Structures are given as C-alpha cells and as structure tokens.
C-alpha cells in the first residue's frame, strides 16, 4: 500500500467536538512545530455553537512557508464519531488515520488505502483520571503526546511551551506534562513511529510572528491612536473589540492617575455602535467599530451620513459568509460591493484589503489616518480566515518618528487670525474641506452639521448648483484618496506575458503558491495585489497592459470584478472570474486548476479559430 512520505510538508486535520477543550491542545501542537523552525498555518473550522457540534482544526506544515489552505488531508486525527465517515473519506490515499480505539469499530468503517493507527485514549484516561472534565481535557494532551512521537515533534519543545503557559501555576504545569508523557510513552511502546510524514528541525521561521488578524487590527487601532471604540458582538469580529480592551488595559492606563486613555462601549446594536463612532469622530477623537456583514447592513444609514457630512469613521469588517445570517463561522470576501457603495444616494467609500495580520495592524493604523485626512468612512476589509486564525507573518513595525495625520482641522489661532472657514469648501483643489471641532472658538468656526444638502459654508440649501458643487467635490476627494491609500503590489512574471491576475486580502498565500505552481507548469502571469479602493492609476494601467486578467476572489458574484468594470470602464470580456465561495478558505490547488483550465481551453479555442479561419479562406 502506498504511504505518503513527506518531511515538513503535509496537512494534518483534527476532528473534534466543540467545547471539549481541543482547540488549545491543537494550538499547542501547531506551536510546537513552529518552535522547531518549521512554518505552520492552522485553521480553526468551527460551527456557530458553544458545545456539541463538530469542529475541526487543520494544520498545514510547510517548510517552504506556504500559508494558504492546501486542500486534501494527509493525516486525520478523528476524535468525533459524528463526523467519522466524512473525515475518513477526506483522507488522501496513503494517508494516516489516528483514532481512539477504545471501542472496536467494524472494518467497514475504515478504508483499505489508508494507514490506521488506533490508540485506546478513553481507556488510558479512565484508568488515570476520575474527574470527567479532566478525562476530557487530558485526553487531548495525551493525543498530542502520541502524535509528537509519531511525527517526530520534540517533546521538550512542548514542555517548554507548557512552562511558558503555566508560569506560576505549577500544579497545572505538572499535570499537563504528565499527560503529555502518558501519550508519548504509549506511542513509543505500542505504535510504529515515525510515520512517513514527519517534522524535522529547520530554520524557516526566522523573525516572523504568529498572531491572529483580529488581535493585530486591534493593536493597529492602539498604535493608530483610536480612543473610542463602540461595538456589538458578532462573529467573527468580536475578538477585535476584546483584543482592543486587552491592549488598552496594558498600554493605555495612565500610570500616574490610573485613568483610562480610552473609552469602549458595548452598544445595544450596530446602529448605536456606528452612531457613537460618528459622534466621537465629529468631536475629534479617533474612533472605530468592528463588525461583520450583517452589522454593516444595519450601519448603512449612518455610513451615508458620515460620507455626506464628512466625518472620520473607521469600520473594521471581518467578513463572513453571507447573505443574511449566512455562514457565520465561515469565510468569504462577499461584502465588497455592499461596503464600496454602502448607503442610499451616490456614495463611495474607501476600502483597505490587508492580506495577513501584519497588514491588519498596518492598515488599521493607516485607516485612522486616512479617515481623518479624508473626513470620511474607511473600511478595513478583513475576513474570518485571517481574522480568527493565527498566521505566521512579518513582525509588526512602527516608525518612532511617525506622527498622526489629523487632516485639515482649523485651530482657534487660525480662526482668530481671520482665516476664511467654509466647512464644505474646497480651498486647495484636493476636494477636502477644512473642519473645526466643537468648542474651538467663542465666535468663529461653528456650523450646523447635517445630512441635508448645504452650501460651501454649511448653510442649508437645496439649490441645484450648491448640491452639484458639493457632490462633485466629494468625487474629487475620492480621486485624492486613490493616491493616499496603500498602493497595489506588483509581482511580475519571469517572462513577458499577455496574462495577468488580480487578487486581494486573504487570498494572498494561496495565490502566491499557485503562481509558483503555474510558473513551473509554464503558465506565466503578472500579478497585482489590490490593497485598497479607490483603485490607483496603476490598476488601470495593469488592465490595459494585459489581454486577459483573472480576478480571483472569494464570493459568488465576482464583486471585485464588477467594481473594476464599473470604476475603470474596462471591457468585461477581458476580466476572467476565478471564484471560490463555499465558505472554506481558497486553496492554491483551486486557483491553479481554474487558471490552467481556462488557459488550456483558450489555447484549444484559438487553434480552432485559426483552423476555421483557414477553412473559410480555402472555401472562398
């Protein structure tokens, strides 16, 4: 029988029951491999549930550093009888099935083309522990111990992780180490180790850090100077607000007074959340909210107000599967259009597309600057895949000399000096007007902010010319934004090509891997990674420079493609859809296959065209 043989390049998936404490054990396993210098990318695939439903944890081990979901499973740790059949079926031929053999299973429950490793986990636990919760929790640690032997993971590395985790809690430390040894000893004594797939120490991690995008975005808000946060709990964004709270407690409490340099409100709904952010932004504090698609739907009226009244607002949208309640614990990039054009009337909003936690941090801080500079809502468009999973990425960076860009705010001195103040007046050609903050000057600079139309001096007006001046200025401001947002990243093919590919956000790692595979197969593509909307000039140029451009995205309706067509007047026929939208993160295999198929099909068609043409000529 075939046996998958691979060192530092495999996928292992844990099938567990939600609420059984498996996640922390599985994380421990992933982190141990990381500590051996081998990159991993874990993904928590969980249900909208607290206890009882199936949950999976998939770890891709890749010395090459590929962080995208690969597709396929080389080893299954099948700990959930509910999903047994599907889990067994998912294994690649020659793969490994690890299971709890306490209760015998009929041969029909297995496959002939996989390697089965049984371990009586329940028996072992029941013999040692009497407390049901302990039996449950330590079962997880015991299987991590056994796996570490099977896969060649250093036991001491795991013990070192325990020591960090349970510093000062010696009792917990001891009991975990004991469980680990139980597993390791059993495996050494009873199981054939190592397997064909295994881990070997390497030096491929370097300076990189291991963190989830939601924590990173929250930290970006700390560094970017956000002081007011308002939110309403919603998966998968709640951990942004929770992380912000945690970092505030660490970094934002004045040591002298004990007072907080922040205010966090868990509001009654998303409407109130965005309202609080609008109020704080109007009054000169940097403010943000974190939400997901359904929350953005509720916020749209306020988003229109902030756009039209020109108020800085930062919205972190950790996207999940839509529409409606959709797939609350699955990932998608399906809010592109609903955010780009959120609210009634003619509106357009700035969107940022971070690719990983490193950029979640960077873009969150940038969003706060951009919101102030542009006096408008700015969306940070992350998704569940990067938001809720720990990802290996470049360390966070902060330039000590960096100042906050507070944009055009008139001071009391400006007003005192008699500087002309027209709240909605473009004075320097970039479409961005000056603003004043409440309470600045006793007699000058006050105005009445409203969502109704007004003239350049903020006086109520429904005159056509006043309205047109204002909305044209907003368009000009949007053009200005295109030059201020994070610019696209270009990755040229190794040889000249008429094909291009556009991608963004969490698709990055899968796309990069696919590009390597495609290049090896002789398909060359220039690649452009979008980092923001509005699209900078270079995007239009990229489209002009290529005959065909694949647009890879994680939604059904090719929303980014629509946005490109709509905003850049590009011929839609030249933009080829590559769409992945089943709620799982896109894979390199999927992208490679889609692009390869299209390129091959096209080669056949174009040959046929040549033939037809020749034929017609002959007939003539």
């Amino acid at each position: 029988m075939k046996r998958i043989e691979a060192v530092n390049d495999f996928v292992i998936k844990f099938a567990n029951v939600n609420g059984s404490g498996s996640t922390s054990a599985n994380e421990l396993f992933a982190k141990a491999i990381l500590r051996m210098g081998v990159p991993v990318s874990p993904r928590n695939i969980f249900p909208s549930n607290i206890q009882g439903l199936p949950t999976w944890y998939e770890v891709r081990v890749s010395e090459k550093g590929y962080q995208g979901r690969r597709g396929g499973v080389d080893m299954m740790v099948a700990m959930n009888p509910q999903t047994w059949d599907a889990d067994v079926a998912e294994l690649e031929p020659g793969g490994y099935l690890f299971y709890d053999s306490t209760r015998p299973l009929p041969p029909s429950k297995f496959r002939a083309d996989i390697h089965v490793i049984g371990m009586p986990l329940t028996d072992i636990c029941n013999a040692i522990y009497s407390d049901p919760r302990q039996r449950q929790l330590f079962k997880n640690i015991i299987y991590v111990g056994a796996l570490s032997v099977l896969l060649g993971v250093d036991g001491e590395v795991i013990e070192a992780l325990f020591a960090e985790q349970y510093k000062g809690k010696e009792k917990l430390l001891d009991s975990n180490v004991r469980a680990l040894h139980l597993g390791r000893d059993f495996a050494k004594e009873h199981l054939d180790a190592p397997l064909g797939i295994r881990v070997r120490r390497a030096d491929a991690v370097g300076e990189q850090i291991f963190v989830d995008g939601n924590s990173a975005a929250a930290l970006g808000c700390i560094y970017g100077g956000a002081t007011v946060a308002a939110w309403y709990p919603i998966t998968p964004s709640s951990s942004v607000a929770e992380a912000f709270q945690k970092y505030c407690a660490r970094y934002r409490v004045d040591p002298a007074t004990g007072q907080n340099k922040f205010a966090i409100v868990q509001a009654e709904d998303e409407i109130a959340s965005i309202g609080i952010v609008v109020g704080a932004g109007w009054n000169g504090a940097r403010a943000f909210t974190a939400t997901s698609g359904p929350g953005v739907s509720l916020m749209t009226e306020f988003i229109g107000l902030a756009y039209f009244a020109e108020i800085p607002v930062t919205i972190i949208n950790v996207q999940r599967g839509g529409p409606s309640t959709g797939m609350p614990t699955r990932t998608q990039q399906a809010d592109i259009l609903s955010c780009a054009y959120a609210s009634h009337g003619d509106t357009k909003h700035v969107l940022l597309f971070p690719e990983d936690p490193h950029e979640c941090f960077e873009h969150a801080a940038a969003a706060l600057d951009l919101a102030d500079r542009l006096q408008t809502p700015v969306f940070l468009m992350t998704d569940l895949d990067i938001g809720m999973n720990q990802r290996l990425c470049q360390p966070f960076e902060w330039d000590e000399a960096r100042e906050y860009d507070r944009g055009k705010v008139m001071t009391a001195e400006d007003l005192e000096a008699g500087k002309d103040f027209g709240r909605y007046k473009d004075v320097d050609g970039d479409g961005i007007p000056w603003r004043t903050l409440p309470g600045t000057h006793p007699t000058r600079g006050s105005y009445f902010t409203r969502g109704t139309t007004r003239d350049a001096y903020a006086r109520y007006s429904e005159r056509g010319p006043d309205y047109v001046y204002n909305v044209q200025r907003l368009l000009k401001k949007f053009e200005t934004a295109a030059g201020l947002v994070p610019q696209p990243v270009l990755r040229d093919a190794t040889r000249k090509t008429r094909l291009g590919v556009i991608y963004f956000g969490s698709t990055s790692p899968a796309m990069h891997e696919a590009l390597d595979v495609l290049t090896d197969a002789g398909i060359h593509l220039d690649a452009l990674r979008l980092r923001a909307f509005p699209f900078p000039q270079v995007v239009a140029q990229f489209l002009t420079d290529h005959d065909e451009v694949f647009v890879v995205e994680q939604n059904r309706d090719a929303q980014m493609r629509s946005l490109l067509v709509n905003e850049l007047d590009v011929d839609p026929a030249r933009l080829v859809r590559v769409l992945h939208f089943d709620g799982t993160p896109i894979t390199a295999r999927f992208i490679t296959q889609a692009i390869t198929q299209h390129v091959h099909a096209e080669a056949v068609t174009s040959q046929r065209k040549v033939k037809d043409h020749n034929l017609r000529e002959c007939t003539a």
Partner: protein
Amino acid sequence: MTYLAKPRLHHPSLTTNKVGYTRRDYEGKISTLCAGCGHDSISAAIIQACWELDIEPHRVAKLSGIGCSSKTPDYFLGASHGFNTVHGRMPSVLTGANLANRDLLYLGVSGDGDSASIGLGQFAHVMRRGVCMVYIVENNGVYGLTKGQFSATADRGSKSKKGVINSDSPVDLIGMALQLGATYVARSFSGDKAQLVPLIKGAISHGGAAFIDVISPCVAFNNHAGSTKSYDYVREHNEAVNRIDFITPRSEITTDYAPGEVVEVLQHDGLTLRLRKLHDGYDPTDRLAAMNHVQTHQARGEVVTGLLYVDPDASDLHEALNTSATPLNALGRQELCPGAQALAKLNAALR
C-alpha cells in the same frame, strides 16, 4: 415662520452676563417652524437658561435627530456646533461626542417620533448608560413634518385633527427614564416658561443623565378639542409637583417657607436647587415614589409636571469608564502610542 431677520446690532444698554454675553448672543437662525409652535418657546427657554447660567455658547454641543423638534438647534445658540443626525439616533451620536470631549455641555433635542418610535431603543440605552447630557423631548404627540399622523406618545382615546381616535397605548418616556436610571427627570409645558427655564437650568447643572419631557403643542396638527396635547388640555390638567424657585450657590434658606415646604438638592457643579413643594409629601429624591405618583396621576388624566426625580449623587458614563480628565480628543501620539520598543517586546512574545 417669519422671514424678517432681527438686526444683529445690539442696543448698547443690553445687559451682559458674567461671561460677557447678552441674551441675544444666545440666539440662532430664524425659526422656520409655524407661528405659535411650542418648540419655539422651548428654544427661547434654552436661550434664557444658558444666558442666566453664564454658559459660553461655544462650549455647548447641540445634537438632534430628525423632525420639527430636531430642526430647532439651528434656532438657538448660533455660536455652538450643532449636529442634526439621523432619525432616532441622536442618543448614540451624543454618547460618542461626549466620550470624545467630556468638557463640553451636551444638549440633545428630540421629538416624540424621534425618541418614542424609531429611537425608543437608543433613548432607553442612553439613559441606562448615564451619559451626562440634557435630553429634551419636545413632545406634541403628533408627526408634524409629515402632516399629522399620531406619534407613539399620543394618548389612547385622543382624537387626531382628521377625527381618528387613537387606539394604541402611549409610550411613557418619563416612566421609562425613571425606570432605566436617568438621574434627573422632569416634565414641563412649553407654555409655562416660569417652570421650564429653572428646570432646564437644573438639568444643565446636574452632572448626569438629565431628561426633560416638554409637552409642546403642535398648532398645525394637534391643538384641537379631543387632543390631550393641546394648549387648552395641558393648561386644564397641569399638576405641578413642585417649583424650582431659584438656584444659587448655597444661599441661605429664607424664612418665607414653612418647615418641610422646601427640598434642597446640591448639584454636581456646586449649585443648589431649591424646590418648593406643591404636593404634600412629594419627595423628588425617591425614585420609586416618583414612579408611583406619576402613574397614579396620569391614570386620572392629569399631566404631572415639575422636577419629578433627582439623584443628588448622580454619576455618569465617564465615571463608569474611568476616562482621563483630559478629554480623549486632546490626547496626541505622545499619550496614545506605546512606541516601537513596546512593539518589539510584543513581537518577541508572539514567536
């Protein structure tokens, strides 16, 4: 409305207050509401209260939702920043503004449609949080700007201008504010300036969530027989529980009062409210008794007015959140950014 602007020129003999402003300096744009609208009287009362309390106009932030009432912040305190937000959502915007700068005075102006229908949720939650503000509902029981539909505060059995009888129970904003934790709850009548101005002054000096429900008749759509929000009805059924006689920094009780006739409440900013009781045994510091009294008298068709409840030890959201004394909008990079060194340490912990 009138289109004739009053001249901006002030008569040199106009009295100025302690901060150097005349009463006219507290005015705003000319009202576009109907002549005789109760809302204009409330605007005048706000102007009077702010002038008398020596408040600098630019230190006030005026926020409103949508509707006739919500237009009024344009008609007073022209030197203050105003924000006419979206329908029913003024409370959240006010909350955010307040969090950004605790040093300003926040005045929320809303109507019965804005607060009791579309905005009932936000009304409730802003009271729960104890946001330091003066929240005035200009309550006329009718949608004026869309021409006469019943609002959620219209009493059951009251008659619309078109003759329709309202069959729905009214939303009792006073009852809700009392139950949800507002620390200054009052009701007044736009036609009783002598009562309203001191109530607004009391609310301004309160230091917590202050709510005033002001019955403000709509002359165009709800001032007819059969309405319970008309000038005539309110005048006939007004039952004031007390009167705020004056507010001065800790002045002596004069001998004009019989024992037990006066309640004194020391406010947040050091001012003292002196309440003259009009109802025997009414204690405005007893929340449960206030709820009971208001409900009992409302059931009899009376309009209970006055300072219904005040908590002399009120606290606010900033206190609950322990926010810095320096307003959050005045903190810069130095105070807010942990810096590169802290980040390097954090990176190390994530490996």
